[in-house]
Structures are given as C-alpha cells and as structure tokens.
C-alpha cells in the first residue's frame, strides 16, 4: 500500500497500517544512522522550516538532525524571533513561510489544533511537533517504535503511563498509537491529572500505583508540568514523589524485564529516582536516538517518499 498522507497531524487519524509503515521506514533509516556516513540524499534541495512557537530542545534538535540526515536545508524559527511577537497571526506567519518557498513546515505550538489549522491554509506538508495538550505524534511513534524493539509485537502487552496525563500531548499520542497496536494501556497518576474521561479512548484509568504497575512490561513516566497546574491540581512536588514517584521498591512491582521510558526532560528525584533513570531497564536515551530515525521516516514519507524505496544496503 503506497503512502499517501502529506501531513502528519495526529496519531488518532493514522491507520494501523500507516503506523507500521512509518516504523518499517524508520527501521531502515536507523540502519543508515549506524553507518559512518550518516547522510542520504532523499530530501536534497528541499527546505524544511522548524516553526517552534513554544520552547523545545529535544524535539527541535531531533527534527533538525533528521532533516539534515536527509540532506534537506533547515531553517529554525522560534517564538522569540518570529513576528508573532509583533502581533502577526499564525496564518500570516505560515503564509509568509510558504511564500518564501519552504517545502515543509514542522510546527510546535501551545494551542491545540493549530497544526490542523495550518494544514488547511497551506499547500505544503505540515508536521505536528506537539500542539498544546493535544498530540505529539512523532513522540508516540518513536515511543512505540522503541517498545517494539524490546518487546516485539505490542498486542496484549501491559503498558502503564504514569504522571500528568491531563496536560500531556505525549500521553494522548501514545494512547492512540498503543491502542491501535493492540496494547493493554493503563493510565495512573493523581485523580486531578487523570480524569476518568480518558477511558473513552480505550484505556484503563487507575489511582492505585501498585496494582497498575503489577506485571507491566512498559512504564512510561511523564514529567509533572508543575508550572501549568498552578498548584491547584496536587499539593506539592514532594507529595507527588511520595505518592507516585518511581523508586526501586515500586519498580520491583513491574515485570522483571520491564522497560522504563520517559519522553524528557526528566526531573531526577521527582517522577523517577536518579538510579532508575540510569539503570539497566531505562531506555530513555534509546528513545532520543530512535527519535531521529522516526522523524526521518515522517519527513521522508510526507515529502512524497515511499517506504519500499528506503534500502539500508549500499
């Protein structure tokens, strides 16, 4: 089945087959990344604009790296330097970027739905690099890619997402990806940050850490975004850590082979003990590396490439 999608806006709209296509393509690119010459000419002559209207380090660097590995030219626009600070609307900013003959826009924005909005305005592909608390599709794709590398098929596998789910776009993208891939997903955290409404997305919700972690094969920790909750959603960081932080005892409840994931940035000693972050079960840095391959796959496919044309040989 050929790849036909021009934009990557959400995982919710992807079919299982499309997720698998991205993963297959990412695998091929990952092999290329292992070579001494890590560059392919797939997007030579194309210009990708990274429009990051909200701060980001990891995602912006990974998109930058991915585009350069594909030989694209990359221009970064950040909120502080963009005309949005002078009152320009997102529409005008984006239309200007298109008029400057960019071939693709990667957008990070604090307002949910803005990549969809841009995709309706522009003729060039729009890639969502995180929109508010809505979705972060490349993160969901790289997380499930990493899980599959360790576990094989995710069908029936118990995955726990622990932390601030309410404000997390990473959680939502992972929920969509994991449920499509057949995983058994449980969300855990303080009740104020894990509303029951999430069950409508095909996952379980629990406030009991012990039973939720029991036999889980994956635990994904999310950062407590304390600044967003204005101290109304839970009493303190200290109480959070005492109730929900992942420590050695609690990690012992997991399946012995379980992997520990985190999309970063991690807060050591808050949501995760420092030694667990660096321990043998942690795949946190693998996630970062896989983020390049997955984003190469996404940029390549949305620019019109086909999965079967990526050959790791040569």
């Amino acid at each position, binding site marked *: 089945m050929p790849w036909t999608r021009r934009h990557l806006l959400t995982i919710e709209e992807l079919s299982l087959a499309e997720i698998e296509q991205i993963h297959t393509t990412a695998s091929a690119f990952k092999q290329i990344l292992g070579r001494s010459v890590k560059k392919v000419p797939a997007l030579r002559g194309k210009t990708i604009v990274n429009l990051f209207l909200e701060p980001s380090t990891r995602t912006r660097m990974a998109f930058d790296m991915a585009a350069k590995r594909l030989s694209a030219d990359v221009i970064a626009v950040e909120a502080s330097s963009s005309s949005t600070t002078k009152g320009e609307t997102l529409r005008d900013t984006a239309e200007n970027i298109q008029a400057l003959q960019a071939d693709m826009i990667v957008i990070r*924005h*604090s307002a949910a739905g803005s990549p969809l909005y841009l995709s309706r305005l522009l003729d060039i592909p729009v890639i969502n690099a995180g*929109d508010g608390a809505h979705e972060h599709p490349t993160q969901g794709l790289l997380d499930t890619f990493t899980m599959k590398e360790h576990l094989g098929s995710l069908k029936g596998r118990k995955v726990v997402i622990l932390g601030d789910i309410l404000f997390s776009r990473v959680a939502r993208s992972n929920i969509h990806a994991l449920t499509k891939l057949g995983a058994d997903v449980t969300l855990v955290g303080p009740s104020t940050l894990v509303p029951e409404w999430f069950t409508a997305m095909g996952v379980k919700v629990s406030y009991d850490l012990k039973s939720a972690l029991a036999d889980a094969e994956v635990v994904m920790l999310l950062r407590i975004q304390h600044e967003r909750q204005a101290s109304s959603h839970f009493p303190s960081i200290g109480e959070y850590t005492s109730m929900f932080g992942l420590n050695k005892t609690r990690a012992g409840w997991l399946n012995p082979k379980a992997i520990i994931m985190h999309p970063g940035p991690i807060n050591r000693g808050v949501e995760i003990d420092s030694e667990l972050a660096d321990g043998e079960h942690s795949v946190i840095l693998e996630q970062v590396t896989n983020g390049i391959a997955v984003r190469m796959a996404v940029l390549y496919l949305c620019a019109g490439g086909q999965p079967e044309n990526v050959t790791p040989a040569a």
Partner: protein
Amino acid sequence: MPSLWIKNARIVDPAAKRDAVGDLFIVDGKIVASLSAAAKKRAKKIDARGLVACPGLVDIHVHFREPGQTHKETIATGSHCAAAGGFTTVVCMPNTSPPADNAGTIQYINDAIRRDAVVKVYPTGCITVGLKGQALAPIGSLKRAGVVAITDDGDCVQSNELMRRAIEYAKMFDLPVMDHCQDASMTQGAVMNEGVMSTRLGLRGWPNAAEDLIVARNVVLSEYTGAHIHLQHISSKFSIDVIRRGKSRGARITAEATPHHIALTDECLAGYDTNFKMNPPLRTESDRRAIIAGLRDGTLDCINTDHAPHTDYEKDKEFDYAPNGIIGLETSLAVTLDVLVRQNKFKLAHVIDLMTRKPAAILGLPAGTLAVGAAADICLFDPNEQWLYDAKAGFSKSSNSPWHGQTLTGRVKTTIVDGRVVFENGKISSR
C-alpha cells in the same frame, strides 16, 4: 402609510391562542379587526398563501457592538440581520466599548437606534461599573435613560454579596437582572465543554458545574430577595433541574436557551472550527436533550440567539485564541423549527410562543401578539422552503456562523414593523 391586507396566511398568534388560516388588516401601524370595502381597495395586499403569519419575533439577547466595536456589527447592520430573521424586537447587551454602564452611553445607543435601526431595539445597562464586578453601576440612572434590564453579560458578577445588592436595588425600579451564569474561578483559560471531547482534543474544559453553581446561587438570591433574575443561555442539564425546582418553589426566575445549544453538541468541535466556539460552550447530547425537555415543560421560557458577531480575521485563529460567539439572528427561526418542530414534534404555536410572547413578557416589552390594537409587528415565513445559508452574503458585518453553507428549512419572507415592510424578497427596505 398605506393600509395593509395580508391575505390567506396561517395566522399563529399564541398570545390569542389563534392558529387558523385567515387575513390580517393593518391601519396606521396597528392591527385592526377588518377594513371597509373601500379601504380594502386602497390597501397594499400581500398574498400570504402557504405562509405563516406570526407576531414579529423577539430576541432579548443580542450583541450589536455599538459603540466601539463597529467593525463587527452596528445597530444598523444588526437590525438588518434581525429584520431578515423575522425579528421585530431585540434587546442588545451592554458589553460594548466603552461598556453601557452610564446614562450617557445609553443615550448614545438610543440616538443610534432612532437614527439607524429598522426594527425595535432596546438597550440594557451594566450591573457593575465597567463590567468589572466590583461596584454597582448607576442602575437608577440607567433605568431613567431607558434600559429594559441590567446585565454584565459576557461576564458574571462573582461576588454573591454584590449580586444580592444589585438585584435588591434593581427590584426597586422593577428592572430585571439578566445573568450570564459562570463561576470564573472554575473556567480559567477554558475554551470548550469539559468532558470526553475536551480530553480527546487537549483543550481546556469549562465544566457545567461552573454554570450550575451560579444558577443555584441565583435561585437562592432571587428567592431570598424576591427579585427577578433572568438566566441567560442555559446550557447544562443540571442547571435545568435547579431551575425547575426553583420555579416550583416560586422563585422569580426566568431562563433562556439558544438555537445552538439545542441543535449542536461538543462533538462538533472535532475539527477545532472556531465557529463552534462560544460561551457557554456547546455541551453533550444529554445536556442538549435536557434543554429541549426544559423548553417543552416550561422550565426554560424562551429562545434567544446570543447573536455575537466577530469578524473573519478575529475568528480565523488558533482555537485557544479565537473569541467566543456566533451570529444567529438570520438562522434562528429555521434552526429552531428544525430542532423543535421537525425533530422533537413541538407544536408550531409552542415554538412561536417561545420566540415571541414569552421573551417579550420576561422584560415587559410591548411585543409578541397580533391582537387587535397591537403594534403591527409581523413575521411572514414559509415553514417548508429550503434555502442555502451563505453567512458571507448575510446582513451582518460578520459571518461567524456554524450553519454557513448549510441548507436550512424555513425561510422568512416578509418582516413588518409598525405596519411598515422592513424586509421583503431578501432585501431590507430603505428607511
């Protein structure tokens, strides 16, 4: 002014319990029982076969944006929308720029109404100075300047003490207080109904509890003081239960519903279309059904649009940043007929009552009947005509409508104010 003879209309006048095919006669701007044979010869005749003739529609909740936001709407263009939608009496909200919190601004608005309006437009004044919820506006002076109610619509008086004093004070002038029921502390940054959809879309939720709390507060305060509070645009199922109980206890509470809250739900937000963003937000199917049930049993008294124009460029933004509100005057009748009559089997006369006599009665406005001697404010519509609604071709300065591009059923053909045709064949008659 020539006499008018409207022939063979289905005359629906709930105030007079009349629903029969017949003729209407108008002399000197008033409804009369009959015309002499000679007068009939001279009268302007309107063939209304197949049309419904009802009292001109009444909407006690519109935003005409004048003064200060005339890029969105003016009293002239707003009144044109009203006429095109079959409305002959409308009440405009005071959240203008500056807010209508003093007699001078009301005088300015009344001057614009006399100069520009093609239908009857009544102003309201603010409850508090600058809509800030801190100090009472000069309510007595506002009354003397001609307001028909006071409201901080768009905002809600958060202090229970101030609200209590406001209604107690306004009662002295027999002035209803209209409240936009929203606990602000629970809705910081909220842009849509809180629930499954907001969770899925990652948008900040506006819980119905924030409306329910203020509705309950208002029922309590109304009963405590004996003052009349009108609850604007009720959107939540729980609120309707509270109102029902309050009314059964005898509280002087009235309440309204909007066409959008009976027609649409938060499922409509899946595409982040800002023409579905309003305050209070679209809620769930269960709320929508409860609002319809509330209209059926009289818990909710009337239908009002909350006509809230915003320009294309203001609405054309990220969902979080777009302003709240939609226009509604030109689509209200068609949408309401569709939801209440066709889908929910309300009698036509019941729906007309909800859009004429009942809203007029809430504020004591002289409107809503075709009785002999009444002002000849009349709406003639074809209940079955299908038409394509193009919001950009409408009479508003704005086009922020969720019904843009849709085929609607039920179309206003002629609107008459004080015996004068103000809208006919899709056009506003020049003043």
